[in-house]
């Protein structure tokens, strides 16, 4: 283990009395901060939830009031009209597949860039960094052409490949950063033990960069989940399309049925929030138990 220097200033010992006052104030401040951000974060969901039980007229006249009659029909609308079930299943499948492949590929390339020296490494790194900034809106025509010529138009795999690809620069950027931080000694010890390239990657580097992988995966998943432009451009049938179509289903040329749209949004986020809560437990426990860093 590489020792990390903990630099403490000399005047570290403060008197007990000041400490007491300070800790009370800090405690209050702490809860203010926590509550502020909690209210701020919960507010949109709460508003969405209440609004999803209103009529459109109520939403327009009193956007922050309670509904006179709770309109459960909005949920029937949302579930009936837009094939939400299929769209949701597609979103789950496409997002998970694109996230797994993406993270695998990002891990592979990051390992090479972060842990080895070779010709062209710098060029790859610079290209990938610039890739983060590419405005995807400008690439509609080339992407459509590519997907069409590969025969992947209106297929799950088409969206999976595109989503995998568009996330590679960001994921690589994140994962590489974490892999850079793994001390060289760990790997050197493994070499002495006779571990080859692949074994070191799978047994040492990947587990040690778990935080980075999870960070990148979270982001990649959210990108896939919320992507709309390409999901419409590269598909044409409901059996392939994603949840974003379900949400946009209540928009038409001249107006939007906001209350039904909000109901669709609520329906679509409930499973993802539950998944997130379950999944996060796994991640965090995995992280703590596997903490051999430093």
């Amino acid at each position, binding site marked *: 283990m590489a020792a990390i220097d903990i630099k403490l200033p000399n005047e570290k010992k403060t008197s007990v009395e000041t400490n007491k006052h300070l800790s009370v104030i800090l405690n209050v401040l702490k809860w203010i901060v926590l509550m502020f951000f909690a209210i701020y974060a919960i507010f949109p969901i709460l508003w969405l939830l209440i609004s999803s039980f209103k009529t*459109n007229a109520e939403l327009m006249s009193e956007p922050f009031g309670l509904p006179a009659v709770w309109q459960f029909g909005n949920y029937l609308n949302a579930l009936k009209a837009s094939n939400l079930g299929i769209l949701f299943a597609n979103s789950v499948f496409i997002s998970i597949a694109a996230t797994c492949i993406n993270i695998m590929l990002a891990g592979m390339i990051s390992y090479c860039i972060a842990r080895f020296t070779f010709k062209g490494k710098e060029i790859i790194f610079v290209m990938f960094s610039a890739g983060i900034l590419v405005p995807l809106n400008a690439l509609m025509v080339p992407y459509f052409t590519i997907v069409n010529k590969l025969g992947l138009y209106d297929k799950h795999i088409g969206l999976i490949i595109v989503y995998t690809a568009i996330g590679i620069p960001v994921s690589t950027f994140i994962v590489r950063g974490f892999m850079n931080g793994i001390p060289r000694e760990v790997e050197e010890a493994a070499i002495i033990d006779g571990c080859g390239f692949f074994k070191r990657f799978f047994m040492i580097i990947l587990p040690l960069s778990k935080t980075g992988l999870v960070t990148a995966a979270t982001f990649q998943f959210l990108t896939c989940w919320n992507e*709309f432009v390409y999901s419409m451009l590269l598909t044409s049938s409901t059996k392939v399309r994603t949840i974003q179509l379900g949400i*946009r*289903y209540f928009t038409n040329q*001249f107006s939007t049925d906001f209350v039904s749209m909000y109901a669709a949004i609520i329906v679509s986020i409930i499973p993802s929030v539950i998944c997130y809560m379950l999944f996060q437990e796994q991640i965090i426990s995995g992280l703590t138990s596997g903490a051999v860093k430093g």
Partner: protein
Amino acid sequence: MKMKVSLKKSLSVLAASGVLVSTVLGGCAPKTENEAVSEAAAPKKEEAKKEEAKKEITINFPTIWVGTDSKANVISQLITSFNEENKGSIKVVVEEMPDYQAYREKTKTNVIAGNAPDIFTTDNAGNTEIFYKSGKLMDFTPYLDDAWKGTFLEGTLDKEGVYEGQHLAIPYEMAVLPVMYNAKLLKQVGYDEFPKTYTEMFEMFDKLKAADLIPATQMTGENAWTSMLWYSQIVTSIGGPDVYSRGLDDPAFVEAAKVMQKMFDYTSSDAVGAGAAVPAGHFLNEKAAVFMNGPWFIGRFKKDGVEGLYDNVQIAPAPYFEGGKGQAGGYIGTVQAYLVAAKQEDKAKEEAVVKFIKYLTDPAHVAQLSKESGALFYVKTGVSDDTERIQKAMIEQSNAAPYVANHFQAAMPQKVVTEFPQALSSLALGESTPEEFVELLKAAESK
């Protein structure tokens, strides 16, 4: 010891993948010298295969008339019955595109990539010009015999959808955009009908304002739709219905901007930056007395309006501008949707496409569509006793109108249309004078 791994292998693979990329995408490089994209795209190949097997012809039809659109039900019924009637020979497959912006982007991308959908729709904005120029659209001229032509309103087919002598687009849905007002609120300030001139209208606005009402809604967010319509009314009223053809140098544009600036003194405090939902909300909640929109909005008076709103809504032509070149009773309108089709190699498929378009434009079907949705069409359907009253008034007023002029958004180049909301908010906030407002539009035009 510094160790280097040669990247030769990786590079050669990269090069190979580069070759792969360029072979796969042969025709996709930016076209510099009229290098037309002519490769048959994947879906078309599949169709060709099907054709050999003597199977039914599949027509893909991406459409916005789905979901909550007022035409969705009837369109869906029409397609189902068409598919049943032509079972085994033709099948229309719908692609649902409820989001209009996404629809416009997708159809444009399809056409640019050389892969136009078999049938789709477009409006009177910038995309249509790209479609015409692309050379990918079917020319309906050989099919437009007198019998089919005769079902459309007089003269529309000679004027609309014609590009270089070819009929590339069939005008379908019509937009007419009168003043819609709340008769109950007008009565409160002593008016039984909508004023005939702008001077009178502003007098009424003063009274409405004094009664703590929003006289007329405006918006500068999104595409500034309702305010764009007002500006169109004013500019054609001052400069005449042909004002757009004279370009932005015509003094009418500055004069109209002066009136427009005044309009913003009589609107809601949230008008600058407001999207379409905001003015709609004010009118539907009887907070605003005057509103401007098209026939598709009729259904919402009942559905989303406050109790009894529908019975209070009346429509009128926009006021007349004293000393202007326009005439009293002049109307604003445009083609809201053209039906367009991709050029087909295969004659049988071409005929199938035309057959479906004829089915959609069949007067009986259009009458049904119009009745259920409230929308108006370029196909003659006539007014019957059970025509909805506001829709009936729109048809009568626009028929009686001395002219139906285009609106600004349809008549001006796309660059100007894009800049219009920004220039208008600048005008409304007093950051720009009316002259500067027109200068901003001109600057956009020359970009």
